[in-house]
């Protein structure tokens, strides 16, 4: 057992910190927030040049085939700066779904485009009545000669507004099996209704109205589709635990600095024991989150039941820690912590977004409690 980074990993992590420190100041980020796209295409290209978009792409598809730890390091660095680019959606989630697909043609063409930064892919699997259950799919795919006719409405497709392609889940008529299709975002009949999320990223409801697709756009189907999706989402969840960890560490720094800089009764607030103890409690939560993240990493290649339990445990611990650290961060700042002009509120909102996406605490507690049961 060895918890230290290899030399390459340390370089990757330092490089990410350095790049983001230069390109993600609070002011730079605010400018992106209010821009049309909500992030920077230029940054995206740099991500491609730095190889970050190829980290999870297998070598046989022209990627770096890096260890999942590499991805985690990038995500933690991004969490520290509240990065707005849809990195996790494309480079972790979609990349993994596509890499696991047996559709060789789509796989090789898409993955190389992703790695080069020319294609962003979002997952549109949620529906109004599905909550977090990926099996609850009303969207219907009716088999036709050579293909399918798809109808349905997807909601809360994260980062879909800026995606070139969408992975859409649908239930095959007659068999009721779930299938994953790849759709161009600008296909006729596909309507992407965008909206902002509380953390400044974007999502969309996606209406698919009588859209005809070729059999060749099928990524996976049946039990395999569910397993591929489940495993890819587990990777995403763990990656976003790392993102939350990065964010929490900054919240602790911000709160500490704030308490150092403010005076009351003639001494800095940080001299008050009750406030020190709250910082200490935040520290404990952050330590425990890092530990459960590492445990998740250790089980990410394990058989599904173990992997699911490990990822859900990580999410539960991280979400709980995120709530405590985020709320304390605001409380310790007092009123100014509630304003958009101060950083801490933005961190809190990202932590809430992480908590509620891809399974909240209740969902993951249930999954952990019943983890022997499989997909």
């Amino acid at each position, binding site marked *: 057992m060895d918890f230290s980074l290899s030399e390459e990993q340390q370089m990757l992590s330092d490089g990410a910190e350095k790049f983001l420190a230069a390109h993600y100041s609070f002011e730079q980020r605010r400018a992106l927030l209010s821009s049309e796209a909500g992030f920077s295409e230029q940054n995206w290209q740099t991500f491609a040049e730095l190889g970050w978009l190829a980290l999870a792409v297998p070598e046989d598809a022209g990627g770096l085939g890096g260890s999942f730890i590499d991805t985690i390091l990038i995500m933690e660095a991004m969490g520290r700066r509240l990065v707005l680019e849809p990195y996790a959606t494309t480079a972790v989630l979609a990349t993994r779904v596509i890499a696991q697909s047996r559709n060789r043609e789509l796989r090789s063409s898409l993955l190389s485009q992703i790695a080069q930064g020319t294609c962003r892919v979002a997952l549109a699997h949620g529906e109004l009545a599905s909550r977090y259950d990926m099996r609850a799919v009303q969207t219907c795919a009716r088999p036709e000669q050579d293909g399918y006719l798809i109808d349905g409405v997807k909601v809360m497709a994260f980062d879909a507004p800026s995606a070139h392609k969408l992975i859409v889940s649908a239930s095959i008529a007659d068999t009721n099996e779930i299938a994953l299709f790849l759709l161009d975002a600008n296909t006729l009949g596909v309507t992407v209704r965008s909206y902002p999320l509380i953390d400044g990223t974007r*999502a969309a409801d996606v209406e698919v109205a009588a859209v005809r697709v070729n059999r060749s756009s099928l990524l996976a189907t049946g039990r395999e589709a569910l397993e591929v999706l489940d495993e890819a989402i587990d990777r995403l969840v763990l990656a976003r635990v790392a993102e939350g960890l990065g964010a929490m560490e900054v919240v602790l720094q911000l709160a500490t600095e704030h308490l150092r800089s403010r005076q009351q009764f003639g001494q800095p607030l940080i001299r008050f024991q009750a406030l020190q103890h709250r910082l200490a409690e935040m520290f404990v939560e952050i330590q425990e989150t890092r530990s459960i993240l590492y445990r998740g990493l250790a089980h990410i290649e394990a058989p599904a039941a173990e992997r699911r339990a490990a990822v859900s445990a990580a999410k539960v611990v991280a979400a709980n820690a995120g709530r405590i650290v985020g709320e304390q961060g605001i409380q310790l700042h007092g*009123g100014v912590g*509630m304003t958009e002009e101060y950083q801490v509120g933005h961190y809190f909102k990202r932590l809430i977004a992480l908590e509620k996406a891809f399974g909240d605490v209740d969902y993951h507690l249930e999954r952990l409690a019943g983890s022997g049961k499989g997909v």
Partner: protein
Amino acid sequence: MNFEFSPEDEAFRAEVREFIRANLPAEIACDARRWFNPKVDNYRRWQGILAARGWGAPHWPPEYGGTDWSAIRRHIFMEEIYKADAPDFFWQGTHMLAPVLIAFGSADQKSRFLPKILNGEESWCQGFSEPGAGSDLATLRTAAKLEGDHYIINGQKIWTSDARESDWGFFLVRTDPTVKPQRGLSFIVARMDTPGIRIRPIRTIDGREELNEVFFDNVRVPQAQLVGEPGMGWTYAKYLLDKERTASAFLYFNKRHLQKAKALASEQFAGGVRLIDTPAFSRKVARVEADLLALEWSVLRILAQEKNKYDLNAVVSALKIRGSEMQQRVTELQIDALGPLALRHFERRDATIDDPTWMPGWPELAIGASSLFLFERAATIYGGAREVQKNIIAKLAIGS
């Protein structure tokens, strides 16, 4: 001991309910249902409707337009207001300024201001806090210097709600820098369009801009707009804050929003079951509900003037602590009910369900839920932080 509302009180409740049913405009109810605070214009309008019925400020003495309802009836009234998704009173005028004017204002001030507060014609905002002052009013620095028959005000206030939508504001200003800090403050009112007053909205993390900074740059305010005696500002402010003791429980807010959380959980599904029927969520609701019922009866005990062996201020501080926690818990329950849908951010100008671009199926109550959740993170900060309340309890109830 007798825990029943009298038949007369129940009849009163029916009367209030019927009045609201007949007189609350649908669009105002809709606005109040979706958002933490209805639009200022809706407040104004609703205040006028209440005033026309003689109910614009039940807590005022009858000679100024108040009613002679008991505390319990005022409670019943508020319950019905919130149950119907009606707006609250135009609070800053009716509940914050007016009691001070009634107790300490001049005859001119009363006749000039009270009627227009009562009928909603003039809107008011409050300016006590200043940057860096926290909950301690003694450190306020905004200065008012008497020159001839005008005060010249210089300084800055912060966290002033609805400053831009208000006709008038009331402020604590330092008229005498030479005496003990609490003795040098005075209570003054000013039109918000007085030259030299500049308002800067503060965008809060919920995405709204209801709070403001108010800057004073040589603002000339007639001496006659000073309320009561100079140097008594601190006393008046304390009087005002002590006046509505049970308001700090945010009981009606909490009850309304627990109902909304339940309504949301009845529309959302998990694993094919209504969320409200799942064991996990229904228990979560029950847990919050039990604490809220306790809080309600804590309020009733104060309203019914229970002889309590503990100091009333300590009892009120306990209300404030639990009330602010409940504000956080009920709004948390709402976003928990919404799950992933809670992440959507709505602006006030956003599409509504009547709008053709609105996505069918989204729950109407989702609008503004995450904003409210975010805003309520401040519930344990504003109006006297939780720590201050604990100090009060330790001192007055426990005698530490």
